[in-house]
């Protein structure tokens, strides 16, 4: 159930973009919508691993979000569940959504496609039980690849 997709062409190789996405050092350099600082970045970069990011905006407000990594393919793909844990929009507190990031090598560097989708309630519950939603996705993709081969 795709809701919002943004595509960016970045003049950097996929491995560099991926590192910026997944390492606390990388995240600390760019996370947040303005020049306010990242206060905390924790990432357990494996399927089922949690991440947590806290940042302060220039207006002084602090926001924290976190989630669980559902899929991770080095320099290619990252899928995670995502929610505001504090400082989010009040009507969205506790709502779990899904973020999918795909990196594609292009001549000028990397094409990054970013999708923020709402998880259905059942799907989010299931993915929290051991992230099998991600595993299932992978299985389906493998099946499709085998099928088309």
């Amino acid at each position, binding site marked *: 159930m795709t809701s919002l997709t943004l595509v960016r062409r970045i003049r950097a190789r996929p491995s560099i973009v991926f590192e910026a*996405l997944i390492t606390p050092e990388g995240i600390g350099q*760019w996370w*947040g919508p303005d020049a306010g600082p990242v206060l905390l970045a924790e990432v357990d970069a494996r399927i089922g691993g949690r991440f947590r990011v806290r940042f302060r905006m220039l207006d002084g407000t602090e926001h924290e979000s976190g989630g669980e990594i559902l899929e991770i393919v080095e320099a290619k793909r990252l899928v995670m569940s995502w929610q505001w844990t504090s400082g989010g929009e009040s*009507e969205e507190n506790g709502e779990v959504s899904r973020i999918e990031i795909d990196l594609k090598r292009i001549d000028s560097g990397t094409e990054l496609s970013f999708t923020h989708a709402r998880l259905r309630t059942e799907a989010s519950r299931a993915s929290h039980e051991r992230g099998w939603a991600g595993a299932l996705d992978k299985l389906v993709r493998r099946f499709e690849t085998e099928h088309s081969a």
Partner: protein
Amino acid sequence: MVNYKEHRLDRTFGALLDGTRRAILAHLERKESATVSELAEPFAIKLPAVMKHLDVLHEAGLITRSKTGRVVTVRLRPEPMREAMTWLRRYERFWSKNLDRLAAYAERKEAEARNGRR
């Protein structure tokens, strides 16, 4: 309450996934109201198929239907869409700025990596 709202948004997005349904909504946005046969006209599908799409839109609260004699008039009900758009717009701004910053950082790292190799 929260669950109810979440469910409603899911239905809105679900209804919007289909191209024919989006086209029907776009038509209603331009025209204010239309009959079912007027709505069916631009599509190469049969009336029952159009009725099914209208059912989905109705369940998502995106349209209202009123019957006068044998003619069913359909109108757009924009509230659920507005709610979905608010969500989308808010996140579009948030992530757009985030991704700009990510891109700038990665490009800096790329330049560093290239200079380091020389």
